[in-house]
């Protein structure tokens, strides 16, 4: 059984009265490519935002490589508004269900080993940069490149989180070796992503498909072990999508990554995924291998529909 890289537990995200993600549980294991699919507005990007720390979930827990990186429970106003389940799961008020004291103690012990902060009110809500530094990188549904910078600079800036030199050292160039090394790594990424020819172009002047490649290269520059891609094939023609499919497989092998992606291009998803999770109205309605998902009636009704060339 390969190591668990990402684990999302009971994650619920509520904005005011609207529940965007409802009690989501999923796992991603080392070396896998897992996809999250579902109709528009199902809450997929919101799930990404919870995992990467952009939002603190209204309730729930996220663990990365076994370590709890996000943990929250309803407080204040949210306590009254909360429409999800198990609001006390991540608080001190949670009581393990068991009959005998020994059984309860054993359950508590198991729980504590899984979640070190179990049975406490402890909240962990880091800013996204901390999570990125732990080794989780993401791309965005609407491309967010830095428009005043070139392609190369966009990738180089992503290396900043791996810089060990302080402000003074960097300003007075005492970090030449590290800077050189980072630049070389970025050049390598340019080569791998086939962006060498455009390295000095302003990043946002490129065609859409190329900009997506720059975003992926940028995410890779942060040296992640888990890569989250938000609709990487959006705006790509079928040929580009094919290239992307083989490309994702290649970087997974070359960079020793685990990949978690959101996508609507079903060819890409079915081709490349080891497992698929399906989200509809914030709830997970199915998960399994591509074959299982394609034959799942609930998924077909909600999202996939029936193929015309059946």
């Amino acid at each position, binding site marked *: 059984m390969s190591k668990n890289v990402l684990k999302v537990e009971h994650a619920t995200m509520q904005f005011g009265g609207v529940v965007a993600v409802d009690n989501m549980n999923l796992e991603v294991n080392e070396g896998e490519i897992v996809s999250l699919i579902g109709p528009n507005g199902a809450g997929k990007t919101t799930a990404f935002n919870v995992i990467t720390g*952009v939002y603190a979930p209204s309730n729930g827990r996220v663990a990365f490589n076994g370590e709890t990186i996000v943990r929250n429970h309803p407080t204040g106003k949210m306590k009254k508004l909360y429409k999800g389940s198990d609001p006390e799961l991540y608080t001190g008020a949670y009581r393990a269900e068991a009959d005998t004291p020994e059984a309860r103690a054993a359950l508590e012990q198991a729980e504590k080993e899984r979640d070190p902060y179990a049975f406490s009110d402890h909240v962990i809500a880091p800013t*996204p*940069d901390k999570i990125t530094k732990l080794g989780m990188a993401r791309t965005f549904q609407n491309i967010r490149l830095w428009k*005043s910078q070139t392609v190369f600079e966009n990738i180089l800036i992503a290396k900043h989180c791996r810089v060990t030199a302080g402000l003074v050292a960097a300003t007075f160039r005492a970090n030449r070796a590290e*800077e050189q090394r980072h630049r070389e790594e970025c050049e390598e990424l340019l080569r791998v992503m086939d962006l060498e020819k455009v390295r000095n172009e302003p990043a946002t002047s490129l065609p859409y498909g190329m900009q997506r490649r720059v975003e992926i290269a940028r995410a890779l520059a942060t040296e992640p072990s888990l890569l989250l891609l938000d609709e990487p094939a959006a705006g790509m023609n079928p040929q580009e999508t094919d290239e992307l499919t083989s490309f994702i497989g290649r970087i997974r092998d070359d960079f020793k990554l685990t990949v978690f992606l959101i996508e609507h291009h079903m060819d890409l998803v079915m081709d490349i995924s080891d497992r698929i999770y399906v989200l509809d109205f914030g709830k997970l309605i199915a998960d399994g291998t591509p074959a299982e998902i394609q034959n799942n009636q609930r998924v077909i009704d909600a999202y996939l529909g029936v193929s015309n060339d059946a």
Partner: protein
Amino acid sequence: MVTVVLLAALLALMLLLDNLPGVPSMLLTVLRKGAIYALVAVSMNLLNGFTGLFSLGQAGFMLLGAYTYAVLTIPVGSQASIYQQYKGGGVGFSITESLTGAMGGFGTLLGVVICLILAGIVAGLFAYLIGLPVLRLKSDYLAIATLGFAEILRALIQYTKLGPITNGSNLLYGFTSFSDFHLGALKLSTVMPFLFSGLCIAVVVLLINSTYGRAFKAIRDDEVAAEAMGINLARHKRMSFVISSFFAGISGALLAMYQASVQAVTFKAAMTYEILLIVVIGGIGSITGSVVASFLFVGCSEWWLRFLDNETTLKNFNAKLIFAIVFGLIVLGLAVVILRRDCKKGLPPLRRITAPGGGKRVRVNWSAIASIVLAVALLGWDVWFVISPNLKLPLLRSGFRMVVFSVVIMIMVLFFRRGLFGDSELDPAALWDSLRGRRTQSGRSAGGDRR
């Protein structure tokens, strides 16, 4: 490398200007004040232009720097008379005096450098404290909050209870200023501000081109993406704020040295506005722009436009005729240019168009009509002026200079929003190479990939 040579040449030039006879004193004034404003403008550009944090607190940090410097360098002997209102005022020592006593001329320089750095540190410290609550705010709220803090600092400095240190709202003077610097018989009053300012600006340039500078630019362009790529927003914004204020403090101290006196009332919000306008004119995001615009701004406001303040009487009819012809040609030329541009864009003054519901209507381009009316009026006045026995030019009297100046600034703000240099720099190395006929990579941003 080229930059270093350039700076050295610049300093040598200043040395000559300081000591050659016959150099107009206005030129030296503009150069000195321009150098100081260049440093403030660069510090503000670092914050506003490169990190995207719209802050209006510059004057407050300059104030802190100026007072720190002044208080620490007033000679002990003069402290009693300067702090007249607050008996026993003054800090009781003077860093420059002590060092001069121990090490002579070199001691003065060392003392000044130490006090400048202290001035920056005090400003930076306050920036750190202020930044904690304020940097979270959205852009216009950040602007007003920093403006507010600057005003609070100004009131604080004038507080009578702090009088023994700050001398309340009274003047501080007598401290080490630029005229105290000599190298033997050579005067250094213009070299020194250039030297200090230049060194500080060089540090800022190094910062901008370092990995932290790039992180600042990423925050400016898209802070959500910057955060996702591992850049801690709070820490980096604070960094930028503190560094910008550090240099603003140093420039405040330099201003004190230049004026040889310090008073809280000069560091009003109006000063911050002037710096902001300099940054905008030079180009938000361009260090070269800020430097050049500073000299232009100081030159215009102190020197070149001064003639507009003087009541001018032309010598005789011929002079008046020449003036009228030149004036008429300028008005005509501008009107023609504006109208042609509008017509080319498809907006003639009057145009018959088909209204949406059918039928013909006349669309009027009001600004074109206004330009025509204005031009006709000015030309009419021109003719009347020639005919009349008057020899005195109207409008030119005290205050006109600043009005013209403000109009020029408004024109730049409205029509040339990217400023003189936009967000690109003048790369001396690239310029040098191209002068020697070599093809290089474009100098799009300072240093590009090569530094």
